């Protein structure tokens, strides 16, 4: 098209120019038509299963709806009920926050540490280490939860037998104790999630030029100084991405809870995500479940925006 424009100079007779422009118009229109044709399958599908679903979910959140009968309009009642008249709401929000507040920093630090360890060029075996550390993150959370359920078994499980063997007389009851059920889930999730984020940090580490460290070494910097003055600032972008993904993943914790505790004991591991499932598909309060989903969505948005804000204040791009 650009060449055509170049050719259409002053020397071209008027009529020909007009015809030329007309040809260009139809060509443009044809391209637009092709464009719409190409995107139409996705557009139609997304209109039903994503865009439309979002709107309908919001509508359901304003109704009393049990799937069997038609939704009955309630206005904001579901939202009011959640904040003022639901004893579980705050408790489960608290549990959700517990998982976010523990998982995010622990996984962040562990995966960074693992990435630094793996980044050491210590022969071909580091490749094997990398594969081993990454392995838990590719397997399904459902299957892994089944394995860990048995590992956490107070009497017959691997963990407590190991702890007794190395001298702990009364190891915790883990998943059957409301005090220990949350830490148990955190242990299992940290074990499963670290390898995934380790690879992201590793990619970040490999983009840091070696010369920076060499220069610092010449200036007599200690390994600790090198870590805080070079590695940490150079990884700022990676850390930001990892933090955003981690927060979302921690908020969405569901499958491990579903398989390992069903929210128990005494509701100590029930998260908002699990509560939405329970309200929607066990109690068939689809309207209320949708309202919970929207409150939860708003919360995740706010946290993510705060992270962006924080990032901008730190002077990132």
């Amino acid at each position, binding site marked *: 098209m650009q060449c055509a424009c170049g050719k259409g100079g002053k020397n071209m007779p008027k009529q020909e120019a007009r015809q030329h422009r007309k040809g260009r118009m139809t060509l443009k229109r044809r391209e637009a038509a092709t464009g719409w044709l190409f995107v139409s399958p996705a557009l139609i599908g997304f209109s039903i299963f*994503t865009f439309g679903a979002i709107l309908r979910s919001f509508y359901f959140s304003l109704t009393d709806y049990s799937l069997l009968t038609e939704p009955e309009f309630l206005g904001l009642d579901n939202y009011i009920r959640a904040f003022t008249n639901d004893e579980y709401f705050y408790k489960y929000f608290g549990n959700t926050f517990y998982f976010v507040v523990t998982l995010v920093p622990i996984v962040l630090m562990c995966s960074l540490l693992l990435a630094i360890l793996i980044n050491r060029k210590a022969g071909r075996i580091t490749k094997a280490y*990398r594969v081993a550390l990454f392995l838990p993150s590719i397997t399904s959370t459902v299957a892994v939860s089944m394995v860990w359920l048995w590992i956490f078994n107070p009497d017959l499980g691997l963990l407590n037998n190991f702890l007794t063997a190395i001298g702990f007389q009364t190891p915790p009851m883990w998943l059957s104790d409301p005090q220990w059920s949350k830490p148990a889930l955190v242990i299992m999730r940290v*074990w499963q999630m670290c390898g995934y984020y380790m690879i992201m940090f590793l990619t970040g580490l490999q983009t840091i030029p070696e010369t920076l460290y060499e220069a610092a070494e010449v200036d007599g910097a200690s390994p600790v100084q090198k870590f805080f003055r070079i590695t940490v600032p150079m990884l700022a972008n990676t850390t930001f991405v990892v933090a955003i993904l981690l927060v979302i993943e921690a908020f969405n914790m569901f499958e491990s809870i579903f398989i390992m505790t069903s929210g128990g004991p005494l509701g100590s591991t029930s998260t908002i995500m699990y509560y939405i499932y329970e309200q929607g598909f066990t109690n068939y309060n689809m309207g209320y479940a949708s309202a919970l989903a929207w409150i939860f969505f708003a919360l995740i948005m706010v946290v993510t925006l705060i992270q962006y804000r924080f990032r901008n204040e730190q002077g990132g791009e």
Partner: protein
Amino acid sequence: MKIRPMGMQARRRTGNIAYHLFMAVLCLTMIYPFVWSLFSSFKGREQLYTDSPLNILPEPPTLENYDRLFEVLPFERFVINSVILSVAIPLCMIAVASFTAYALTRLQFKGRNLLFLAFVATMMIPSHVTLIPNYKTIVDLNLYNTYTALFLTNVFTASNAFNIFFFRQFFLSIPKDLESAAIIDGCSRLGVFLRIILPNSKPAIATTAILSFRSVWNAFLMPMLIINDYDKMTLTVGLKYLKEWEPNWAVLLAGASLSIVPIVIVFLAFQKYFMNSNMNAGFGGT
């Protein structure tokens, strides 16, 4: 530094040994639960419930747990179903995503950028917001208990929006010259896409294929809600029912091992691609 080279070397060597020891312990922590689960699945009921779990070796090894596993539920079907779905669904996702991304990258039309933004924005929406309305849509369309429902809810939701985004990023890096030449030669847009763009997008296809494969293989909530026929269930959903019905833990560990081993084999075979796709995903997402 030059005064005591021997001391330095010795220190470095102990440092190296300590490093490898530490890494070995870490790796063992990561792998041991899998190995232990696999070995325990060959233990007899007697041994599993009385012997210390620290004794990992099954004495004597037995296949009774696997016999029982296939007796309680059709696990061989679950494996087949999972394999078929986690190949077929990603293929559809990639076909739709790449096609859409091509139009959004190379074809000029009004509203294109807005449309792209709309697709990308859906990545921010947590899946449980769309869970209930999609469940209802599927019931209304008489698609309950069908694979069509699983295809639709994967191809037209947020995870495929990510694929669209990812493909677009990739297509932007393909030079336009190739394409212009083909168009001048009279090749249609579809032809350009199929003969020039796709063959040049192998890295992007590999990345999205692996990420989608993993998410479909591990998917739990949607297939659990939609599928209720044992003949159609996937492994993850089958495990949930196994846990409800079977009290013997040796059998449950057999089920878990059966669903872990295939993906581990696939991972070991394609581990380079798995890790690359992980990296790409992280940085495509920025």
